[in-house]
């Protein structure tokens, strides 16, 4: 009985202690708007203080260094870090990572979030290790790069070598102009997950590569004994930054500089008809706002994604709260049906629509900002924009779009993607052999090569139909082993919202009148999007750009055609109306006149 009571008391005390948990120093701002100075010691993963003259030197750990004052556990559940958490609502679609393999003819949008249209890396045999080393440079640490539940046993040793990539606080909060996000990308590609954050700051340099280290690599080894060309990850700190106590001054900020966001969230648009420069003229930024003023978050790091219902959405700022002095739009001459059926971004965001969609280059997909950047206008992966489609609210909104290109097996009328490693092993050598042109687009292909590729894969999957899907084209071998192409809607392309750069009113769709959209040649209803055709001897076919808008094209054209004679119509209706008005006024005054006479007569 005594023991039971003691146990109960212990449990109660523990719970009470938990509820009385004191917030960490950095979790609750005291109201002072100035940025606090961070004159602190750097700690490694073992919570040991880092002194620049020690050997060996380990990278600092953000969890151990920042964690004592900022609740790392809470922060690491933030939006940028929780992609792989299946309990988190995926919400509105967002930019995917795109697995690209030119020689294996693979272009697949990936995400751990369950957005419709993306593929889950695990379903394609992509391990967390490979995902992280390929895309981790554009993820601010944590999440997939540190989620041990995603790490396969097969790669356990490699994770011990590379370490986990902790939440990289510096990716956003480092205000130093010398913060090098491109270096972070490079380090992640080398599987220096543990070192990447350190390397990206101006505090240290990291050379070497965990990728080249053997499975039993130890942090305290030094060089790989018999592989002199393979240098292990080695940190060298800038000793000048350390004082005698081992403290450094970190240049940090609450208000994230736009450059930090830009590195991962940049885009530029190319078009066959004309090259466009990246649009750097977001009206909000020109007005002096920072990205984080709209895309806010609190300690929980649940960043505002600009959804309509959020506090900092277009509607809430411009129509309701007037935050940041947001002007209230008059939309003079714009019938309100547009505001019901069309999102703000349709008219105000992204590049002006042209007759053919732009090829968009994004940070995530084209590794912009790094030495790996895909620079050619038609460089893979092919992302098109703007592509207008219905959003979750049923409004037409602009999107980026990527067609998947993948190899699959047809099973019961559905497609099962073939694991990428298997495809790479079989297909890449076949296609690489003949790929001699230095292009970042698809390699030159012909029927014969595709036939051989399909046939080779078919031998691995006997009795099953192997297909290559590219855009709406489904390539396969018929019973006579001839290459056949069929049109298909499966899988659908992946679309995600395009919201930047925001154009001011004078550059919005409709600024030049209704015929910006409502005309028979206006791009809005009549533009074309490119089909993903990988055969070089077939010109890339174009598809109607409105296929995702769920409108009746005939009706739209009919309505647009009314604008041909609309000016004349206005003249006619005004004229006739004035006639009617004149008649009414005439008889009205006649009536008034009679009444006045009657009144006069009565008085008399």
């Amino acid at each position, binding site marked *: 009985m005594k023991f039971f009571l003691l146990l109960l008391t212990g449990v109660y005390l523990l719970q009470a202690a938990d509820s009385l948990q004191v917030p960490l120093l950095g979790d609750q701002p005291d109201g002072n708007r100035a940025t606090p100075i961070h004159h602190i010691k750097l700690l490694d993963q073992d919570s040991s203080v880092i002194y620049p003259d020690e050997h060996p030197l380990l990278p600092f750990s953000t969890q151990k260094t920042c964690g004592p004052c900022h609740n790392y556990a809470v922060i690491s559940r933030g939006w940028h870090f929780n992609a792989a958490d299946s309990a988190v609502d995926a919400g509105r679609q967002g930019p995917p990572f795109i697995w690209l393999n030119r020689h294996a003819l693979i272009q697949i949008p990936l995400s751990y979030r369950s957005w419709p249209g993306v593929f889950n890396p695990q379903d394609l045999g992509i391990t967390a290790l490979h995902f992280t080393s390929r895309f981790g440079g554009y993820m601010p640490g944590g999440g997939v790069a540190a989620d041990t539940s995603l790490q396969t046993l097969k790669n356990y040793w490699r994770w011990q070598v590379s370490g986990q990539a902790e939440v990289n606080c510096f990716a956003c909060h480092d205000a130093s102009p010398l913060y090098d996000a491109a270096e972070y990308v490079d380090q992640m590609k080398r599987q220096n997950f543990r070192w990447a954050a350190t390397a990206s700051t101006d505090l240290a340099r990291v050379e070497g590569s965990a990728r080249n280290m053997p499975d039993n690599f130890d942090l305290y080894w030094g060089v790989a004994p018999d592989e002199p060309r393979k240098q292990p990850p080695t940190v060298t700190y800038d000793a000048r930054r350390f004082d005698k106590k081992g403290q450094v001054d970190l240049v940090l900020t609450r208000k994230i500089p736009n450059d930090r966001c830009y590195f991962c969230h940049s885009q530029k648009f190319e078009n066959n008809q004309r090259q466009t420069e990246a649009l750097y003229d977001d009206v909000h930024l020109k007005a002096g706002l920072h990205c984080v003023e709209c895309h806010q978050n609190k300690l929980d790091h649940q960043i505002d994604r600009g959804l309509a219902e959020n506090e900092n959405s277009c509607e809430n700022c411009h129509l309701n709260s007037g935050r940041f002095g947001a002007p209230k739009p008059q939309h003079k001459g714009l*019938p309100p*049906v547009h505001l019901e059926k069309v999102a703000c971004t349709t008219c105000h965001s992204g590049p002006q629509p042209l007759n053919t969609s732009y090829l968009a280059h994004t940070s995530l997909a084209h590794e912009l900002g790094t030495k790996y950047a895909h620079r050619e206008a038609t460089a893979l992966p092919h992302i098109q924009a703007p592509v207008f489609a219905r959003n979750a609210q049923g409004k037409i909104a602009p999107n980026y779009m990527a067609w998947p290109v993948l190899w699959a097996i047809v099973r019961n009328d559905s497609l099962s993607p073939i694991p990428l490693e298997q495809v790479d092993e079989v297909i890449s050598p076949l296609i690489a052999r003949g790929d001699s042109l230095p292009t970042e687009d698809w390699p030159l292909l012909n029927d014969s090569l595709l036939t051989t590729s399909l046939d080779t894969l078919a031998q691995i999957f006997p009795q099953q139909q192997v297909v290559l899907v590219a855009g709406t084209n489904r390539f396969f071998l018929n019973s006579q082993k001839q290459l056949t192409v069929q049109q298909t809607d499966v899988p659908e392309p992946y679309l995600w919202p395009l919201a930047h750069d925001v154009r001011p009113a004078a550059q919005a769709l409709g600024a030049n009148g209704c015929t910006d959209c409502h005309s028979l040649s206006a791009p809005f209803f009549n533009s074309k999007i490119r089909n993903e055709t990988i055969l070089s001897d077939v010109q890339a076919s174009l598809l109607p750009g409105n296929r995702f808008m769920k409108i009746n094209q005939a009706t739209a054209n009919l309505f647009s055609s009314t604008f041909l004679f609309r000016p004349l119509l206005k003249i006619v209706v005004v004229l006739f109306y004035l006639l009617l008005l004149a008649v009414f006024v005439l008889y009205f005054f006649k009536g008034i006149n009679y009444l006045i006479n009657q009144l006069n007569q009565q008085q008399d």
Partner: protein
Amino acid sequence: MFRISVLIVLLVTIVLYWKNRKQHSLNQLKNQLLQNLKADRPGFLKQLRMFSFAWSALLFVLLGLSGFLPELLTGHHMSGFILVLHVLLAPFFLIAFTFWIFASVKRQAFIEKDWQIFKQGWTTIRSHQPTMDKLFFWSFFLLSLIGIGAIILSLFPLFSSSGIGNLIGIHRYVMLLLFLIAVVFYFRYFSLNQKIKIEEK
């Protein structure tokens, strides 16, 4: 709100039809119209009046149906092909209506007798079909001016989106009221079972 209003108008129409179902028949309507035509003075004006009235009435019904049915059935305002139809028919209605007004306005002007009847109160006015006809005409005319005017104003970039929304709202409600008046007058026509008596100076 507008959907409820349309529903009310529909109910009123149904009730009126029910009340007048014995008197009401298409044959009778046709006969009445023919009688009215015969009673009318012959001439170009008569032709114009007849032609423009027919077109106005037809277009009015089509416009009404295209405007109210989507609201009634779906709760949303018209869109798509129906909107295009409505937009295409409206100018023609305006033109036909204008001609009808021009052809009819003189005979619909209030005369001394009408003023005398006005002085005697609503009961007398109600019982006097020609005066009631004129009242219907002028109220229809006035409301049309308001309703059409609202839409014409929305064609120009003079108002903000919310302003245009208000104008469209005015148009819808005024047109609904017009429709109601037309329905009431239509069925009254049968209930009274009277010929149109044209009284003009």
